[in-house]
């Protein structure tokens, strides 16, 4: 069903090679580049040799082809069903694009078939007209590398007018929110889209401030005691980070996780959620954050 050669990197690569030959490219070296770009690391050992040796009878040894048309393939039922499923997602309205006609196609899934049970309850209002309008302004500015302007209230309640260049839209499934990664202003780089007001394209000629903020990373090292299935739970929980694990003995593990410094508080509470199965052993400052919380807990009088 889903695991089919119809979707394979090899079929796509061969389609691209044939297209280039039809367009007049007959240099083996140039065609080999397509393999490097589109297939896997070792595909160069298979794709061109199979075509050249006429094992796959699609390209002659002189790099011509009997194929007359640029290769295309209609969408499979599965692809249409998936497209139909996403056409029913409320977030589709964020995009100012008309989906192809999928009348009569059954969706692969609907919102009745799955449930994300632990996303936060204050997610963005994806169907709110103003939210959709701002999303489109930002996306358009990202596409065209142009500036936007907007107002927002900062954490201390101060009203701000900001002009910047949006670089990317970052979506968090847990928060169910979009954040806009920006550059060109002094205040910071990432802003919740829902907090922006009156976002418009900036059409003036003022240049932006020179401010490009790189993400700063830290590493936390923990010792894990594998009780109550902690190892599996922990490794899955932190699977989306760059990390390295080492077994110390039968039931103890050492794990290093690289995280963005901006997310330190979140990391602290995520590690606390594993209780005594995890001990932070580095950095000292991170360990002290845990100790501080435990000391405060101790003074809460929980019996």
């Amino acid at each position, binding site marked *: 069903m889903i695991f089919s050669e119809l979707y*394979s990197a*090899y079929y796509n690569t061969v389609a691209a090679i044939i297209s280039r030959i039809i367009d007049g490219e007959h240099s083996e070296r140039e065609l080999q580049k397509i393999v490097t770009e589109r297939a896997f690391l070792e595909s160069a050992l298979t794709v061109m040799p199979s075509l050249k040796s*006429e094992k796959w009878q699609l390209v002659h040894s002189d790099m011509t082809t009997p194929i007359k048309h640029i290769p295309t393939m*209609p969408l499979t039922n*599965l692809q249409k069903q*998936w497209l139909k499923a996403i056409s029913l997602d409320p977030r589709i309205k964020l995009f100012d694009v008309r989906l192809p006609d999928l009348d009569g196609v059954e969706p692969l899934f609907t919102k009745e078939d799955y449930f994300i*049970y632990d996303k936060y309850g204050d997610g963005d209002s994806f169907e709110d007209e103003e939210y959709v309008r701002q999303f489109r302004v930002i996306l358009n500015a990202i596409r065209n590398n142009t500036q936007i302007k907007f107002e927002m209230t900062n954490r201390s309640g101060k009203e701000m007018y900001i002009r910047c260049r949006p670089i990317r839209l*970052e*979506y968090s499934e847990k928060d169910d929110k979009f954040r806009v990664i920006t550059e060109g202003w002094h205040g910071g780089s990432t802003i919740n889209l829902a907090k922006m007001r009156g976002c418009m394209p900036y059409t003036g000629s003022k240049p932006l401030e020179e401010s490009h903020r790189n993400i700063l990373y830290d590493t936390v090292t923990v010792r894990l005691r594998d009780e109550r299935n902690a190892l599996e739970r922990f490794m*899955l929980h932190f699977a989306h980070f760059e990390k390295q694990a080492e077994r110390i003995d039968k039931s103890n593990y050492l794990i290093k996780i690289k995280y963005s410094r901006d997310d330190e508080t979140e990391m602290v509470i995520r590690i606390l959620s594993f209780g005594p199965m995890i001990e932070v052993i580095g950095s000292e400052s991170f360990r002290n954050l845990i100790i501080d919380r435990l000391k405060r807990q101790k003074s809460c009088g929980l019996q």
Partner: protein
Amino acid sequence: MSSYSELIKNFEKIRAYMREFYVYGFKNRDDYDAKSSRSYDNERRRIESWLGEHMSFVRTPEGKNVFISIDSRTIRHNPFYKAWKSKSFTDGDITLHFIIFDILYSPSVKMTVAELLKRMDEEYLSGFDNPITFDESTIRKKLKEYCDEGIIKTEKEGRKIYYRRAENTDVADLNEILHYFSEVAPCGAIGSFVLDKTQADTDAFTFKHHYITGAIDTGILAYLFTAMREKRAVTVYNLSRKANTPKKILMIPLRLLISAQNGRQHLVAYLPELNQFQSYRVDYLSNVKIEDVYPGFNELRCELDKMRSKTWGVSVKHNKSGTDHLEHVEFTVCVNKGEEHIIRRLEREKRVGTVEKIDDCTCRFYADVYDSSEVIPWIRTFICRITKLNFSNRTLENQFKNDIKDMYRIYGIDEGV
């Protein structure tokens, strides 16, 4: 001995290896089944070929540990989708594929198998030194496969069956939609297949808290969604943590429960033989076979909907006709002046239950759920301000308190502090 190929016929074996390399990453060659050391080398080489840039290794006294390490915030596309694009095929498969779609280059062109075969031989294969010979039954079989996939249509005229390609669907403008939804929607690998058809790429989107492991289970999910859509039972093999060999189970799949916080995906199903509901980890399921339509599907879904307000995680009421066995969970936190964000946290992070302000500096959360142990990790995130606990499951409450004492000990916090 067959020679090595970076393509594979069966996804199941590689699925387990990818998970081991990505989720754990501390095992060396000897930790895998000794009988399959060549298999280990081949699977590792394949994964390296697909995900080269994300593969790392470290030498330990026990040997070389290979692991996949990815900060999913920095990638544009889920790299595991590449594994779904590695299906093996025969020389005949690929040759036939491109020739058939070249002959049937437009939906207006239709041909019988005999006509197709004649054109293939005369205009395509005859130009090669040793042309492959296809017979009618091979072509008919391939066309049947393509009809099942929906990419070829048939038309009967008298006794003749004509074949033509299905209408093309224009996806050229969908690049951003495909990029976004192939990362956030279930079965995103399928979106990635469509994305491969578009020329341009966008880097407008990145993803935080992005669990990419689920991609490995896309095949299972696609079968389960199909069964749910058609309201059918399935037989499936489940490898439980307590057993060494997978067990075959007949079940009615009802809903996928997906976690945005721990990367796990569960299937809630009804087991007709036991008259009970049960949750299963999708990554432990394999070999799904779709069975007959189950007439009571809608009623089971309604029953499941009723459970939602009592389900914190994935534990559901077991006995279909029995009464609810609920556990009370309650905890109180202190919220000092300037810490109003804690109340907001309680409100937005609770999945069920009630948050109640007791006074200016105290808040209480309470809920009645099927399994109070599922709430524990969340309660621990409030360590530093928990003043009171009240669980109906006293064993669990005591364990929670002992765990905190254990943490004091681990971090060397004096009794007197």
